[in-house]
């Protein structure tokens, strides 16, 4: 009988171990990667160059992309659609907006990214992530001409499995 308390304690401790401890996806776990673009100076192609007052909005999306509402940036991190093989953004430089949020001045280029999707299992808590293969970015300057003059992929047959490295270089 003298050991009874000890056994009860052991049983209780073991039952606490059963508490769920890995049902939240940790932020440090790499999940669906974003598309990373670095901006360079077209006249001095080794040096980075800021885009002034950039304004990025996805086609078929009403929200401006967070972090790209009239900011000065030299890098663009774009989320890709996981429900279709194409994602399109309108990217405007030197943007001026009126009070209703309409663009009154600036040069808008249409960036179209095409790819093949692959869903990869991550873990119980994070489920699946999408990786992108054969990624190709094309720029259409529209009626107002290109402000992105030249672009190139970091490598051929570009695959996006993580967003720790740059995938594309844009020169302007």
């Amino acid at each position: 009988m003298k050991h009874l308390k000890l056994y009860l304690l052991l049983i209780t401790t073991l039952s606490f171990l059963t508490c769920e401890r890995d049902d939240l996806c940790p932020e440090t776990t790499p999940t669906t990667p974003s598309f990373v673009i670095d901006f360079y100076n077209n006249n001095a192609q080794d040096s980075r160059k800021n885009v002034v007052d950039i304004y990025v909005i996805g086609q078929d999306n009403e929200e401006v992309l967070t972090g790209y509402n009239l900011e000065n940036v030299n890098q663009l991190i774009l989320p890709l659609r996981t429900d279709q093989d194409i994602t399109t953004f309108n990217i405007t430089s030197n943007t001026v907006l009126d009070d209703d949020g309409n663009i009154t001045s600036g040069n808008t280029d249409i960036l179209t990214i095409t790819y093949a999707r692959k869903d990869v299992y991550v873990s119980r808590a994070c489920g699946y992530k999408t990786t992108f293969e054969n990624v190709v970015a094309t720029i259409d300057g529209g009626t107002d001409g290109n402000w992105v003059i030249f672009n190139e992929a970091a490598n051929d047959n570009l695959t996006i499995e993580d967003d720790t490295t740059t995938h594309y270089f844009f020169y302007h």
Partner: protein
Amino acid sequence: MTQRHTTFFIINFLLCLCGTLQAQDTVDATQIKQDTLKLQYGLRIGTDASKLIRTALDDDYTGFEINGDYRLTENWFIAGEIGNEEKTTTNDFLSVTAKGSYFKAGFDYNMYDNWAGLDNMIFAGFRIGASAFSQTRTNYTVYSTDQYWAPQNSSSDSLESSGLSAIWVELIIGIKAEVLNNLYLGINTQLKGMITQDQPVEFENLYVPGFNKTFDSGRIGVGYSYTVSYMIPIFKKKKNKTKKEEEEKKEVDN
């Protein structure tokens, strides 16, 4: 003459001592006979009540287990479980159903010193467990930290991985109490260590029948049971004196 006497005395003394020791032995033997109690030997068959309750209450779970043990010696039991489980694991991003049967076999050791006439147990034991099962992913939603393009892609393409198996070991501690004649109630917890398991292609086992939930971080698993069991009596055998009775006797002697 004196020397002869001395030798005689020593021999005599030794003989006496031996005689006394022998006499002591015979006294103890009769004492044991008087003190022995009959110990029930038989097959104890039962079920895990927690699995039945969970089957009734939890829509995502169906399970049944038959467990049994058989007394080998006073404190050693051969024990085992056989069962069937179906468990659906669902979170915001994933829904997976594991389904299959398992078998566990091993030994229990009773550490509890019963009062005369009682047959309760505080026991520790070990098992080797094996399971044959299938795992079906019924749907998933892609996880992304950036929800600009929400909702993310969802798929309900069923992906079944069948013919999976797993082998593990268990440490088990618990109690069993005889509440009515030959009817026992018990509770135990199990700590499991996976030895080997087949992982589905490009996926993983989230639940293994018998092993229960797997953890991302390693091979450890846990489980518990509430057992209700009935002892089918086969024969009774004399039981050695318990330590308690020995202690009591010592106290009386003192």
